[in-house]
């Protein structure tokens, strides 16, 4: 409403104006409009008359005709004395709950304790706890919880992405179009799916629904089924002690689904573990395309496959797009599920001129079970709750950077680098697994050059991201007390494929430690040496990367 002189007030706006509920600027606009517009002034007067009717009703009917209190009002002083003595008799630890709200962490913890007791009490009293009540409490708990970045994964049939909640949304890349479309179809908030508020928002708009609330080990699960809309049922699991959402799922009528899982709460890689003992990533190992001995000619060869991979690499489709390449039945099959139409067009355009290529994209709903996304799914790497050590580090980090906003910006930037670095580490590892050590000797000289070129590009890009992280992190880590470790030694691999695996493992270690430092996740025992460990891990990654680069060049 830019021109108030030509548009009349609707009654909602008029009431909010009368009630003083409009922002100051809008209020001034309305006032100016009223000065000019008799029609709206008459409306306002009619509204004021209704307000007056309400107050007359309150006075003449409610105040005078509702029954008087049956007894004389008591003197509250006895109640005051009881409260005073109860409070003074409280154990010492309980008094922490009464600290002023300025001590956010303390009062937040107290609010949590009260909340947990309230939920437990309610569950004990009434087995069929209403989902709405639980959600409302979870929303309130979220509002009382200090804002810390949390990583979570969104997964569908065809793709998986990792997101960070609790940071500026502008810092995040948009969701893949197919995923965003699914959220839109579900009428579910895709910006912050793993939250009680989003779940409640979805649930509230249903015209018909059935809820179930179950109590599992250390968690409550709300399940809402509905006959209306595309989503048949949804679930949200809340951690029992503080109602933190752990995971959720939307199940569509067409058998499709969206899952969102908190990575912070997943099983941990121990902080102090040596790199060599770190767990394997659950990413599907890329199968070597066989047989390598397929001769060039009428059917597709490993050379054709390499060309396709190279073409996809050229448009960045090997860095997270849900695209699969396999050599099968004399063809190089390029398939993808849930790829946006624009991206499909780019991929087709990149590979269609190559020999023996078949391209097939499908919708998520019709995804064949055998087709898997190549989008890296980072290993669930973290568990436990924020420890005192991590909280202390966070506070120091915040002080050093100059406040929470700065910390958020810093976290966002470093996590972006880390995401990009991990995408490269996954891609590098996939190439190493597809063309294992020894077998790449079957390739022609030209193909070997192409393969090494791709590998080198991943390494170079990874190096840029690592350098970026190092340049920002090293001074901060040093200021946090990180000691300069001895010069790290590379793993001593004999082939670039083996070295690529070491690069991947050290990247994962950096990711784990970085997440702990930024409070995105915490290990069970975050070491007091976290800054030192992270700095050492970054340097170890650099050493492995240098080694890999050297081996690729041979």
């Amino acid at each position, binding site marked *: 409403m830019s021109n108030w002189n030509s548009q009349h007030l609707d009654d909602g706006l008029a*009431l909010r104006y009368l009630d003083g*509920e409009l922002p100051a600027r809008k209020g001034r606009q309305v006032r100016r409009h009223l000065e000019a517009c008799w029609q709206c002034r008459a409306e306002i007067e009619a509204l004021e008359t209704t*307000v007056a009717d309400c107050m007359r009703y309150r006075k003449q*009917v409610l105040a005078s005709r509702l029954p008087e209190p049956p007894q004389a*009002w008591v003197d509250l002083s006895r109640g005051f004395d009881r409260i005073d003595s109860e409070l003074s008799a409280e154990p010492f630890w309980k008094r922490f709950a*009464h600290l002023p709200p300025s001590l956010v962490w303390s009062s937040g913890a107290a609010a949590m304790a009260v909340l947990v007791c309230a939920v437990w009490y309610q569950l004990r009293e009434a087995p069929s706890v209403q989902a709405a009540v639980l959600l409302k409490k979870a929303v309130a708990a979220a509002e009382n919880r200090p804002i810390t970045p949390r990583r979570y994964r969104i997964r569908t049939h065809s793709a998986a992405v990792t997101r960070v909640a609790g940071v500026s949304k502008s810092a995040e890349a948009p969701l893949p179009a197919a995923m965003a479309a699914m959220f839109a179809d579900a009428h579910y908030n895709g910006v912050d799916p793993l939250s009680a508020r989003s779940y409640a928002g979805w649930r509230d708009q249903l015209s018909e629904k059935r809820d179930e609330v179950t109590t599992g080990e250390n968690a409550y699960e709300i399940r809402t089924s509905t006959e209306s809309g595309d989503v048949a049922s949804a679930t949200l699991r809340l951690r029992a002690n503080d109602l933190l959402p752990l995971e959720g799922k939307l199940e569509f009528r067409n058998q499709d689904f969206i899952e969102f899982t908190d990575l912070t709460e997943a099983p941990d890689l121990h902080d102090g573990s040596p790199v060599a003992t770190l767990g394997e990533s659950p990413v599907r190992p890329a199968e070597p395309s066989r047989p390598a001995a397929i001769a060039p000619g009428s059917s597709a060869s490993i050379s054709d496959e390499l060309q396709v991979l190279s073409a996809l690499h050229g448009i960045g489709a090997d860095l997270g797009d849900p695209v699969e390449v396999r050599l099968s039945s004399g063809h190089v099959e390029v398939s993808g599920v849930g790829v946006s139409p624009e991206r499909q067009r780019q991929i087709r355009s990149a590979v269609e001129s190559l020999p023996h290529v078949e391209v097939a994209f499908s919708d998520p709903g019709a995804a064949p079970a055998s087709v898997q996304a190549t989008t890296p799914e980072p290993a669930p790497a973290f568990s436990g709750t924020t420890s005192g050590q991590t909280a202390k580090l966070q506070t120091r980090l915040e002080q050093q950077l100059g406040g929470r906003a700065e910390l958020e910006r810093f976290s966002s930037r470093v996590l972006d680098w880390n995401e990009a670095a991990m995408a490269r580490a996954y891609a590098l590892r996939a190439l190493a697994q597809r063309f294992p050590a020894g077998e790449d000797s079957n390739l022609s000289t030209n193909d070997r050059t192409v393969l090494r070129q791709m590998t080198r590009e991943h390494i170079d890009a990874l190096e840029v991201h690592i350098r970026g992280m190092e340049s920002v992190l090293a001074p901060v880590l040093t200021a946090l007390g990180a000691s300069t470790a001895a010069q790290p030694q590379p793993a001593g691999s004999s082939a670039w494929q083996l070295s690529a695996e070491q690069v991947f493992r050290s990247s994962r270690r950096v990711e784990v430690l970085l997440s702990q430092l930024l409070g995105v996740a915490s290990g069970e025992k975050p070491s007091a040496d976290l800054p030192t460990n992270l700095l050492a891990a970054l340097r170890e990654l650099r050493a492995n990367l240098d080694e890999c680069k050297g081996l690729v060049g041979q």
Partner: protein
Amino acid sequence: MDVHLAQILRHDRGLPALQAQVTQLFEECREDVYRYLLTLGLDPARAQESAQEVFLRLYASLKKGEQIQNPRGWIFRVAHNYGLKVRARQSNESAFDADLESWLASPARTPEHELLERERMLHFHRAVEGLSEQQKRCLFLRMEGLRYPEIGAALGISTSAVGEFLRRAMARLRKVRDE
């Protein structure tokens, strides 16, 4: 007065003055809280008991260090939630009904000059009774002087939803006069 009281409570917490201030607030607001609880469907005895409990909770919260910017808003929010719990416990009983309709509809012993007003109030009362529960809650809390965010906090709905409920309620009540 509310703001003043809040300031005093913030700076003078822990002193006996706190009891005096809560007592003063109790004396000023208890009838309003009691009536609000009646409109929630509590019977008079429970409504009175609950109203007293609300002020004791206010005292306990302030003693514990809670910062309360607007005591009246806080009181009605707690009264609403506490009242609903009490109502739930008496769920096997029917909600209290003051039967205002009968009184408004019986013109006996009503001076002639008040008859017209009585009739208008009867229509108005029927319109209020015809509002949805949420509209009615928003309206009653607004009549008690609560702002939209306070009403939203009490009812667990957004401020914009409060505005919308009030808009619909007022549109409906306005028709009574226009008819």
